[in-house]
């Protein structure tokens, strides 16, 4: 809640990132995901403690923090990926578009359709490249070869993979390089027309060039999507984040605009972490 009142542009634009800052200022601040008193227990261990945060739409929010601080657990709770794990107990509320997703009547497929997930290692499905992209649309009832082909082309162009794969759409997706696969996964996620893209250290298994491509893609798509990324690399967060959440030991220590958190951290822990005091 304090986020909304936080002034957005208080410091002069920095030279390296003018583009993002300008865009940042130009959109309105609508909360897209709202987390209220979220507590998660795994096998009785208190993994997430009273998390409250509001993630604004059409921007990139990075969740940073040392290993084991609960970043991934938090991210996975956004699209209810803990559902199948009986060891996980979740308390609290999580609103997406103002709808509480952890009520009994919420249809989980409906929630997940709103979000595309990019895992740490790209995980192509055991089928051809084109079938991977149209997997989601097919699930949701889109039929017709022409239509599906158009969807695939559109999304593959969007992630810059089209020229590399257009001649071998029918070959197994596993023949692609790992960087290409991650872009394929992004295309697959975008094809269900989600509102939110979740990335769980989505670039950590990639080489620097693929990693840069993915990062740039995130920046291009944030006009249309809310992007939430868990990242290990502070530099990445500095490069692309509009908002940053710093977590430590299962608690949300600080949340704010990238500028605010990196340049004027309020909390001592945040200060130490971003200056490389611990990792």
């Amino acid at each position, binding site marked *: 809640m304090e986020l909304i009142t936080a002034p957005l542009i208080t410091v002069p634009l920095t030279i390296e990132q003018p583009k993002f800052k300008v865009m940042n200022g130009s959109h309105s601040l609508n909360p897209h995901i709202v987390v209220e008193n979220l507590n998660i227990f795994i096998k009785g261990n208190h993994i997430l403690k009273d998390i409250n945060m509001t993630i604004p739409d059409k921007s990139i929010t990075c969740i940073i923090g040392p290993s084991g601080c609960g970043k991934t657990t938090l991210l996975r709770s956004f*699209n209810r*990926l803990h559902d199948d794990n*009986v060891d996980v107990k979740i308390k609290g509320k999580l609103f997406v578009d103002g709808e509480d997703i952890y009520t009994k009547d919420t249809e989980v*497929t*409906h929630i*997940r*359709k709103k*979000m*595309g*997930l990019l*895992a740490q*290692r790209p*995980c192509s*499905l*055991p*089928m051809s490249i084109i079938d991977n992209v149209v*997997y*989601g649309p097919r*699930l*949701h009832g889109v039929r017709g070869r022409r239509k599906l082909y158009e969807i695939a082309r559109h999304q593959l162009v969007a992630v810059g993979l089209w020229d590399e794969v257009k001649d071998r759409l029918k070959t*197994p997706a*596993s*023949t692609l390089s790992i960087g290409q696969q991650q872009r394929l*996964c992004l295309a*697959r*996620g975008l094809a*269900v027309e989600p509102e939110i893209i*979740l990335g769980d250290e989505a670039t950590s298994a990639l080489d620097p060039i693929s990693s840069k491509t993915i990062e740039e893609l995130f920046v291009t798509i944030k006009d249309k999507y809310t992007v939430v990324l868990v990242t290990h690399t502070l530099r990445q967060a500095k490069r692309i984040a509009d908002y940053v959440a710093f977590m430590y030991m299962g608690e949300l220590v600080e949340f704010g605009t990238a500028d605010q958190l990196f340049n004027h951290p309020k909390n001592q822990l945040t200060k130490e972490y971003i200056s490389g005091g611990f990792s």
Partner: protein
Amino acid sequence: MLKSRLLKDRIARHYMLTATVMAIFFLFLIGGGLFLKSLPIMQEKGLWTLLTTSNWRPFKGDFGFASYILSTLYVTGIAIIIALPLSLLTSIYIIEYASPKILRAFSSVVDLLAGIPPVIYGVWGTLTIVPFISKSIAPHFVEFSTGYSVLAAGVVLAIMIIPLIISILMEVFSAVPKEMREASMSLGATKWQTVKKVVIRKSIPGVIAATVLAISRAFGETLAVLMVCGNFTDLPKSIFDACYPLPALIANNYGEMMSVPQYESALMFAAFLLFFIIVLFNVISRLVLIQIDKRYQL
């Protein structure tokens, strides 16, 4: 110091190589031995006659294997048709849907079932399946059946190989990476859609391998089948007729063969046939798997 370590490394490698070569060598040793022993009957009767006729009168010198070969194929076929769908559904339920508690309990039950000796399955089949077929099922289809039949053998065999298939399939399905399921679910797929389109697809090579193993096992299963199949040499006309698979033929007659000329060679030929069918079957399925891998790279 370094030298002795290197020496040990070398010895270990050669030791293991020898063991490996020996294991493969046995395959050829068995195949070759059976072939040599069955050569006399093949030369005398001709391979074609042996395979296509079904007269079996050792005392008159008639050796036709057609009914044994067909019995073996029928019984195995029925067993797989019954066992495979059941095992698939069970293992999918256990791995994808059941709670970890059920999974643990069920795994030990499956191991237990797989460990029950064939003779027990045979006795149980004789006491329950055979009369059930004779009294309740067969009368709807044929005039008379003792119950000792292709169907009884198939059912008992199916029940025997179900635990085997389930335990392999459980391994196969759990080998599908969790991330793959999550990738599918995060696109809004239901559990069943994920199972159908991702888990099973990814597991096809494993399912084929499990089936092959089960069929090989079924081909060779002797005792339980022998107890319920009726051991009657004739071409079975329906699944309610008695039959006589190859392993049962060998097991039933091996002791008495000495008095009749060519008998030993004929039984060796039966064994060689069984061996050949299983090897051929495995080779074919291996080729299929290679093709699948080439085309789909699952």
